[in-house]
C-alpha cells in the first residue's frame, strides 16, 4: 500500500508543486480543499490513475472530496482495483 501512496504523492509533487515549494505531502494532507490541486487539475490526476490502473472512474465518484488526500484516493481506488494490484 505504501508504494501506491508514494506514487500518488510523487505524482502530485511532480505535477502540481512548483520547484520552490518545500511542502510535505502526508497521507492526510488536504489536496483539493487546500488549493494544492485545483479542480481543473484534478481531471489530469483522475486521468493518470485511470491510465495507470486501466480503470474508468465514473464522474459521479470523482468528487473533490474523493481526491482530497492520498488516503481518500486510495480508498477510491479500492472500489475499482483488485487488492493485489494495490500492494
Amino acid at each position, binding site marked *: 500500500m505504501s508504494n501506491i501512496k508514494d506514487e500518488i504523492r510523487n505524482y502530485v509533487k511532480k505535477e*502540481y508543486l512548483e520547484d520552490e515549494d518545500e511542502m510535505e505531502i502526508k497521507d492526510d494532507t488536504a489536496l483539493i480543499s487546500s488549493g494544492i490541486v485545483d479542480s*481543473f487539475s484534478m481531471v489530469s490526476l483522475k486521468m493518470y490513475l485511470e491510465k495507470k490502473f486501466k480503470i474508468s472512474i465514473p464522474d459521479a465518484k470523482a468528487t473533490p472530496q474523493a481526491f482530497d488526500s492520498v488516503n481518500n484516493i486510495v480508498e477510491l481506488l479500492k472500489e475499482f482495483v483488485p487488492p493485489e494490484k494495490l500492494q
Partner: protein
Amino acid sequence: MAYTKEKEFFQKELDSIRQQGILKEERYIHSPQSADIEVEYPAGAQTREVLNFCANNYLGLSSHPSVLKAAEEGLKERGYGMSSVRFICGTQDIHRELEEKLSKFLGTEATILFASCMDANAAVFESLLGQEDAVIADKLVHASIVDGIRLCKAHQYVYKHMDMAHLEEKLQEAQEHRFRMIATDGVFSMDGDIAPLDEIVALGEKYNAMVMVDDSHATGFLGKTGRGTHELKGVFGKIDIITTTLGKALGGASGGCISGRKEMIDICRQKSRPYLFSNTLAPVIVSASNKVLDVLSESTERRDKLEWNTKYFREQMTKAGINIRAGEHPIVPIMLYNAKLASDFARDMYAEGIYVVGFFFPVVPKGQARIRVQISASHEKEHLDKAIAAFTKVAKKYNILGKTKDEIIAMYGL
C-alpha cells in the same frame, strides 16, 4: 410555494461566505468610466471622487469622445436592438465590417463575434474538438477557458504555469490523440504574466498541436502596434485561434470574438451554441468598436502612453520600497500575501482617494493575497504620483515599506 428549505440553505451559504470575509459587494459608480470616478461606497454613503486604478480601461477609450460619437451614430443609423440571432435576421453590414477589421488587426483569416469573450471561450473548444482530441492547458488559464474545456469532450492535460518543459512532456503524452490544442492566456490577469508564445508556437509545431490564446488582457496595447501578445513575442500571424474581448482595452462595453483559421471560424458559425442561441452585439457597440479599431490602426499614441505610464509606475513603486511583482504589463500586483492585510490595505487606499481592490483565495492561491493595480493611458503623471504617495503612506502605516516577502509574511502570516 416550495421555497422554505431552499431559502434557509441559500441564506446559510451566504452567511458562510460573509463569515469567511469573501463576500463580493458592488460599488456604485455615479459617473462615466474614467481615471476619475464618483463612487458610492458603501451603498447609501455620500459619493466621493476617487482615482480609478482597477479598471481594464487600459487605453482610456471607455469614454473617449470619438468612441461616444461613433456609438451615437450607430444608434441613429442602425437602431438599438436586433431582436434576432445572427443567422435569422440579426446581422448587419457593420457586424461584417467589425469581423473583417478584427481579423486584420489580429493578423488572422476570419473572425466571429460573441456577446462576450466568456461566450467565445465557452464556444471554441466544444465546436472544434471531440473525444478523439486533447486540450493541453496552462494551469492558470482564465475561468472561462476552464469552463469551455469542461464543455467539450476532449481529453484534458494541464501543464504548470508557463513551464515549457512540462508542456513538452504533456505534448508527448498526448500524441495518441487525433488533434492537440494548446490553450493559454496571452496575459494572465492576476499576475500580469506574459505567456512565452514564441516557445509555445515552436512546441506546437514540433508536436503538431494547434495553439489557442485568450488575449483579452493584451489586445490593443501589447506589442509595437498594440496587436497583442503574439506581436510582442514575434509570432504575429502564427496563432491558430485567438479569443479576445471588446470589454477591456477596446472601448470596454462588452463583446468578444474567436479569430483564426478560416475553416475553424466557419465551423464555429455552424456549431457554436452561444452564437446560435443568443443575440450578438447591439449596433451601438459594433459601431463604436469599429471606430476603436480605426483609432488604434491610425496611431500608437495611446498604447505608447500606457507603456510609459506602466514603466514609470513600476519604477517609482519599486524605488519607494513597495513590494510589486516584477514584469512589464500594466497589471501591477502589490504583493501582501495575507488576505486580511490586502483587504485592510485596499480600504485605507480608498480613504486616500485611490480605488483599488484586494484579491485573495480563492481568486489567487492561498498565501498570495495582493492588491491588483491596473494602469491606464487615461492616467496622467499626477494621478500616478498621487497613487504612489498613497501606497507609500499606507505601507508605512502597516510597517511594510522596504520589507521583503519573508519579512511581510513573518509580520502578518499567510
